[in-house]
C-alpha cells in the first residue's frame, strides 16, 4: 500500500493571516484506508490546514494532490465534488432550517422545479438509520443541543459520497456513548479507497482510532508517528515541545479538597429544581472550596440544570446561596448573587465574535471597571493581557477579533471572562471543549487552585476522565433526574456509567442519591 | 437631457438675470403647471429660472434649506411660496439686506419684504366649490376628502368650503372630513370608507387633484357613479375626463400657469426697479361639463 500514491497529499503549505503565520511549510499525507490523526496545541494550525484542503482558503505556497493528481479546490462545493467531505470545528448550520434541509442544502431533490421535502426527509431518515443517530429530520436545528448539532454535521459530511473524510474535533461536544457511535461510523467508512483525517485533543481517542499521527506545532510540521508504536507521552511531547505530566489527579489538589465536602459550609443549595421540559426535582448542595462534577449522557439535563440555576430558563424549585433563598430571574441576578456560568456553546452564549479579546474579557466585569461612569479601557487591556499570559491564549494582540482566534483559544477567552469576574460559584459547562492537552492541564490546575482559594465550582463535563480528575464529588444525571451522587474517592468510570444509564429509575433512588 | 429645467449649468453666471423659485411642492400637477408658466415667462422675458419644491407640503424645514441654497446662489430675484410664513422671516430679511427682491406666490408671507404676492384666494375658491355642491345636492349629507391637514392651503380648502355650507346651506350636512395626503389610492380608500359609513351620502368634495381623482375612483369602484355628486379641485386629465364622463359634477381650477408666469414677470419688473401692485390675483374658475371647452377655461386647464 505504501508504494501507491497517497490518497491525499499536501506539500510545503503556507498560509498567513494578518499578524499570524498560521502555517509554514507544512506536510501531510493520507494513505488509502487509514485514519490519520492530526494533533497540535491550540492555534497550531490544524483547522487552517483542513480549510485549505477543503477549498475554504487558498494556500499561499505549496501543492495538494489527490490520488497523485494535483488539486486546488476553489471552494467547499468543489471539494465535495472531488470527494472531500469536511466536518468543521465551527458548525456551519442554518438554525432556522430543519435537520434534513440542513443536510441536503445545495442538493435538494426536485420535481418540476419544486423541492421534494418528503424525499429529503426520507433520505435523512435513512441516513440516520444507517449511522445510528437518533435525530428527527424534521426538527429545526435551532432546537438541538450542541451535541445534536454535531451529529447533524457528521451526518451531513457522510451524506456525500466522499473518499476523504475530514473531521475537526468532532467529539468535542459528544459524550462517550456518542463517541462510540462515531467511531463505529468511522470504521465503517474506512475502506481501501477511502481515508480519514481526524483532529482531536483527546489523546485516548487518537490512540484508539488512528493509524498514524501527524503533529503540528506553531504552524510547522513536526513529525508523523505510527500510533501503535508511539506512547501518548511522546505524542504530547512532540506537540508541546517538552515533557508533560497529564491525566493524573495531582496529589496536592486531591489532598486539599478530597475531604472538601464535609464540614465546610454549603454555598449553593438547590432543591426540587424542575422545568417543564426535562428536569425533575433536581437537588444537590455545593460546599465552599468544593469542585462538584456533573456527569451524564447527552441530553441528560446537566446543561439545563445550570441554565435553570442562573435564570436563563424558567424553572421551579428553591435555590439558596449561603443559606439565603434567592430569586434568580435572569443571569444578571445570578451574577449579582455570585454565580457565573460558562456555557458549553461558546459561539452562541459565550463570545462576542466580532469584538476583540479585550471587550470579550471585560464583558462580565464592566461595571467594576469604570471610574466616574467611564470605562477604563487601559485597565481592561491590562487585565486582558494578563489573561492572555495566564491562559496562554495564542493571539497576535489583545485587540484581535474573537472570531479570528482558533477554537481552543476562543474557549480560553470565554474562560478568561469568568476568571476576571471572580464569582464565588462558577459553573463551567464543558470547560475544556477544544482545548489542547497541555492547556487542559493548566486549566485543571487553575480550577483546582480556585477551589483551594475558597471558590466553589461545578464542572459539567462529558469527558469522564475530566470529571474524575477534577471533582470532589460527582452528581450523575439521567433523563433530567439525579440518579446518584458519588464521592470521587470511590467513583470509577463504570459506576458513573451505571448511574448515567439508569433510565426510569425510581424516586427513592433519586432522593438518596441527591442528598448525601 | 440634464439641463432641461435649469437651462444652463451655471445660473447667474451668464448675462441673463436669474430668478430662483422655491415652491411648496414639485411632483404635483399643480406645481408642474406653475413651473410651466414660469418657464414660459422665462423664455419670453429672456431670464433664467430654476424651480424647486419639497415633496410634500409639510416639509417646512426642507423648504427652508432650499431657500437657503437658493439665496446662496445669489439670484437677481427670488420667488417664494412659503409653507410657513413665519419660519422664513430671517431669510426674508437676509434677502432684503442683500437687495434681492422677493415675490411671494401661491400664499402670502407675513413680512414686509415681498414686493408683491401672486396668489389664489383659496378660501374664496373653496367657497365657490361649496356653492356648487349646495346647488347640486340641494339637501342631505356630504363629506370632504382633504389632501393635507396641516398646510395653510390644505386647511383653507376645507375651511372655505365648510364655512360656506354652514352659513348658506342649512339643509346640507358635512358628515365627515378625512385627510388622505393627496395620494390617489389612499383617497379612494378613504372615500369608500366614508360612503360605507354613510350609505345615504349625496356628495363628496376632494380638495386637490389626487383627492378628487381618488373620490372618483371610489365612486366608480363601488358602483355609485351618477348617484353621488363629486366636486373636485385643480385640473389634470383624469379630472377633465371625469367631468366629461359625468363622473364628476365639476371642479375649481386655479390658474397655476398664470401664477408661474406672473411671478416671473413680477420678478423681472422688480429687478428692473419697477413699482408693483401689492397683490396679483391669479384667479380661479369653476368648470363643469358646460364650460369645459370654453376658450377661457380650456386655457387654464392643464393635463
Amino acid at each position, binding site marked *: 500500500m505504501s508504494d501507491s500514491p497517497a490518497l491525499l497529499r499536501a506539500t510545503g503549505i503556507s498560509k498567513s493571516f494578518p499578524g499570524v503565520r498560521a502555517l509554514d511549510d507544512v506536510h501531510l499525507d493520507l494513505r488509502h484506508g487509514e485514519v490519520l490523526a492530526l494533533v497540535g496545541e491550540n492555534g497550531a494550525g490544524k483547522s487552517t490546514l483542513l480549510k485549505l484542503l477543503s477549498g*475554504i482558503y487558498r494556500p499561499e505556497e505549496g501543492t495538494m494532490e489527490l490520488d497523485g493528481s494535483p488539486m486546488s479546490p476553489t471552494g467547499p*462545493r468543489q471539494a465535495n465534488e472531488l470527494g472531500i467531505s469536511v466536518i468543521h470545528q465551527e458548525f*456551519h448550520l442554518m*438554525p432556522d432550517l430543519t435537520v434534513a434541509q440542513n443536510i441536503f442544502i445545495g442538493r435538494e431533490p426536485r420535481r418540476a422545479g419544486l423541492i421534494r421535502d418528503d424525499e429529503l426527509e426520507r433520505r435523512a431518515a435513512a441516513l440516520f438509520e444507517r449511522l445510528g443517530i437518533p435525530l428527527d429530520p424534521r426538527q429545526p436545528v435551532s432546537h438541538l443541543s450542541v451535541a445534536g448539532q454535531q451529529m447533524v454535521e457528521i451526518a451531513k459530511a457522510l451524506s456525500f459520497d466522499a473518499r476523504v473524510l475530514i473531521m475537526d474535533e468532532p467529539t468535542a461536544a459528544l459524550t462517550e456513548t456518542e463517541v462510540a457511535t462515531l467511531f463505529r461510523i468511522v470504521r465503517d467508512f474506512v475502506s481501501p479507497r477511502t481515508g480519514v483525517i481526524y483532529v482531536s485533543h483527546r489523546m485516548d481517542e487518537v490512540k484508539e482510532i488512528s493509524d498514524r499521527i501527524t503533529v503540528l506545532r506553531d504552524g510547522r510540521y513536526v513529525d508523523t508517528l505510527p500510533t501503535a508504536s508511539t506512547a501518548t507521552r511522546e505524542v504530547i511531547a512532540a506537540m508541546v515541545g517538552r515533557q508533560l505530566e497529564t491525566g493524573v489527579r495531582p496529589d496536592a489538589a486531591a489532598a486539599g479538597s478530597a475531604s472538601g465536602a464535609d464540614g465546610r459550609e454549603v454555598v449553593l443549595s438547590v432543591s426540587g429544581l424542575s422545568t417543564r421540559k426535562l428536569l425533575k426535582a433536581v437537588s444537590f448542595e455545593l460546599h465552599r472550596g468544593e469542585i462538584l462534577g456533573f456527569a451524564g449522557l447527552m441530553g441528560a439535563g446537566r446543561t439545563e440544570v445550570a441554565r435553570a440555576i442562573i435564570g436563563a430558563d424558567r424553572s421551579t424549585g428553591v435555590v439558596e446561596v449561603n443559606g439565603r433563598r434567592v430569586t434568580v430571574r435572569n443571569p444578571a441576578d445570578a451574577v449579582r448573587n455570585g454565580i457565573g456560568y460558562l456555557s458549553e456553546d461558546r459561539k452562541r452564549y459565550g463570545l462576542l465574535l466580532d469584538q476583540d479579546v479585550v471587550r470579550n474579557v471585560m464583558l462580565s466585569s464592566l461595571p467594576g471597571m469604570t471610574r466616574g461612569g467611564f470605562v477604563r479601557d487601559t485597565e481592561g487591556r491590562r487585565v486582558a493581557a494578563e489573561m492572555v499570559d495566564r491562559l496562554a491564549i495564542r493571539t497576535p494582540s489583545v485587540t484581535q477579533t474573537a472570531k479570528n482566534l482558533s477554537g481552543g483559544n476562543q474557549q480560553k477567552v470565554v474562560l478568561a471572562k469568568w476568571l476576571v469576574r471572580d464569582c464565588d460559584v462558577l459553573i463551567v459547562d464543558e470547560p475544556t471543549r477544544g482545548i489542547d492537552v497541555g492547556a487542559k492541564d493548566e486549566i485543571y490546575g487553575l480550577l483546582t487552585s480556585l477551589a483551594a482559594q475558597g471558590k466553589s465550582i461545578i464542572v459539567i463535563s462529558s469527558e469522564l476522565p475530566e470529571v474524575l480528575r477534577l471533582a470532589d464529588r460527582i452528581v450523575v444525571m439521567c433523563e433530567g433526574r439525579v440518579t446518584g451522587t458519588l464521592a470521587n474517592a470511590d467513583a470509577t468510570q463504570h459506576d458513573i456509567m451505571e448511574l448515567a444509564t439508569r433510565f426510569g429509575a425510581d424516586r427513592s433512588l433519586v432522593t438518596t442519591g441527591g442528598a448525601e | 437631457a440634464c439641463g432641461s429645467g435649469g437651462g444652463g449649468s451655471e445660473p447667474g453666471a451668464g448675462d441673463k438675470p436669474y430668478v430662483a423659485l422655491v415652491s411648496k411642492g414639485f411632483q404635483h*400637477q399643480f406645481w408642474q403647471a406653475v413651473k410651466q408658466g414660469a418657464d414660459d415667462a422665462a423664455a419670453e422675458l429672456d431670464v433664467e429660472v430654476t424651480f424647486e419644491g419639497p*415633496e410634500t407640503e409639510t416639509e417646512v424645514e426642507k423648504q427652508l434649506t432650499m431657500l437657503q441654497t437658493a439665496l446662496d446662489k445669489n439670484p437677481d430675484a427670488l420667488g417664494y411660496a412659503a409653507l410657513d410664513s413665519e419660519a422664513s422671516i430671517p431669510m426674508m430679511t437676509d434677502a432684503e439686506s442683500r437687495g434681492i427682491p422677493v415675490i411671494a406666490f401661491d400664499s402670502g408671507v407675513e413680512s414686509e419684504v415681498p414686493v408683491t404676492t401672486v396668489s389664489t384666494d383659496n378660501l374664496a375658491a373653496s367657497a365657490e366649490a361649496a356653492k356648487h355642491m349646495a346647488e347640486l345636492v340641494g339637501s342631505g349629507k356630504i363629506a370632504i376628502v382633504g389632501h393635507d391637514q396641516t398646510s395653510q392651503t390644505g386647511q383653507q380648502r376645507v375651511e372655505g368650503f365648510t364655512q360656506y355650507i354652514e352659513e348658506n346651506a342649512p339643509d346640507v350636512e358635512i358628515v365627515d372630513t378625512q385627510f388622505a395626503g393627496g395620494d390617489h389610492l389612499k383617497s379612494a380608500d*378613504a372615500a369608500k370608507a366614508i360612503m360605507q359609513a354613510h350609505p345615504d351620502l349625496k356628495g363628496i368634495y376632494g380638495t386637490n387633484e389626487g383627492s378628487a381623482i381618488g373620490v372618483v375612483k371610489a365612486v366608480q369602484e363601488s358602483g355609485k357613479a351618477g348617484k353621488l355628486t363629486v366636486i373636485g379641485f385643480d385640473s389634470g386629465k383624469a379630472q377633465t375626463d371625469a367631468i366629461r364622463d359625468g363622473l364628476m359634477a365639476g371642479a375649481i381650477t386655479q390658474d397655476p400657469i398664470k401664477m408661474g408666469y406672473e411671478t416671473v414677470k413680477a420678478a423681472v419688473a422688480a429687478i428692473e426697479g419697477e413699482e408693483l401692485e401689492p397683490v396679483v390675483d391669479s384667479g380661479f374658475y369653476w368648470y363643469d361639463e358646460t364650460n369645459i371647452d370654453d376658450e377661457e377655461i380650456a386655457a387654464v386647464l392643464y393635463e
Partner: protein
Amino acid sequence: MTTTSTTTGPAKKGPATRFGSRQQLQQILAFAGLVVIFAFFSFASPYFLDWANVKGILLATAVTGIMALGATFVIATGGIDLSVGTGMTLCSVMTGVFLANLGLPLVVGVLGGLAIGALIGLLNGLNVSYLRLPPFIATLAMMMVAQGLSLVISGTKPIYFSDVGGFDQLAAGELIPGLPNAVLIFFAAAAIAGVTLSKTLTGRYALSIGSNEEATAISGVDVRRWKVVIYTVAGLFTGLAGVVMASRLNSAQPGLGLGYELEAIAAVVIGGTSLRGGKATILGTVIGALIMATLTNGLRIMSIPQEWQKVAVGIVIVLAVYADILRRGKEA
C-alpha cells in the same frame, strides 16, 4: 431568558413542516390580531361587515400586499428592500410608456412592466451581492433613482391609459363576479409566492441565507448568485404591483410611491417574518397586509379623525403583534 423559544423538550415530536399545512392552518385560525380587529369593527360599526366593504378592504390591500410579497423574500435573507414603493411607481410609468406612448400590445406592455420590476430587483441584487453594499443602502439608492427616473421619464406628468382599451379591466374587471381582478391577482401572486418560498430553491436559499449566510456559502450554495435571483424575484412582484396600480388608477402617477415601502415592510413584519432573516411566511405577510388595511378602513368607517387614527393604528399594531408573540410563546 429570551431563549426559551429555541430549545424544545425532547418529547416534541416532529412538527409537520411538510407543506406546513397544520402549522399554517393554525396560523390562520389563531392569528389573533386580525380576528380580534375584525370582530371589533364588526361590533363597532354596522357598516363594517358588508361585502362591499370587505371588497374595499381587499382592494386596498392588493397593491401594498403584492409589494409586501416581494419584500418578504428579501427580508427572508436578512435584507431589506426600500425600493418597492418608488420602484412600483417606475414600473407603472414604464407600463404607461409601453402601452400609452409606444402603443405596444397589452400583453407586451404588462410583461414590460414586470420586466422593469425584475430589472430593478436585479440591480438591487447585483449591488448587494457583488458590490457588497448593505441592502439598506443599495435599496435606498434605488428608491431615489427610481423616483427620479419616474419623474424624468414621465416628464413629471401622469400617463393616462384612457386610450389603451381594456387596461383598466386588469384591476377593475371581475373574472369572478363580485371580486375585482386586482384582489384575484393578489391572491394568485400570494399563492405563487408561497410555493416559491417554501418549495423552490429560491425560497429555500433565501431562508438559508437569512439563517446563516456563511454556512450557506460553505455548504456550496452560490450565495451571491442566489441573492441576485432572490432580489430579482422580489422585483417581479414590485413590477406586478406597479401594473396593478396603474390599471387601478388607469394612469401612471409618477409622484406616488414614497412611503409605500414602509407599509409593505410593516405588513411583512406584522405577519411574523423576522427582519433578522431566516424566518418568513407568505401567509403571515398576507395577514399582515390585511391587518393594516382593515385597521385603516375600520377607523375611517368609524369616522375617527385622522390624527387619532394614527394613534389608534400605532397602538393596535403593538397589541396585535404582542398577542401574536404571546400566542406563539404558548405554542412553543
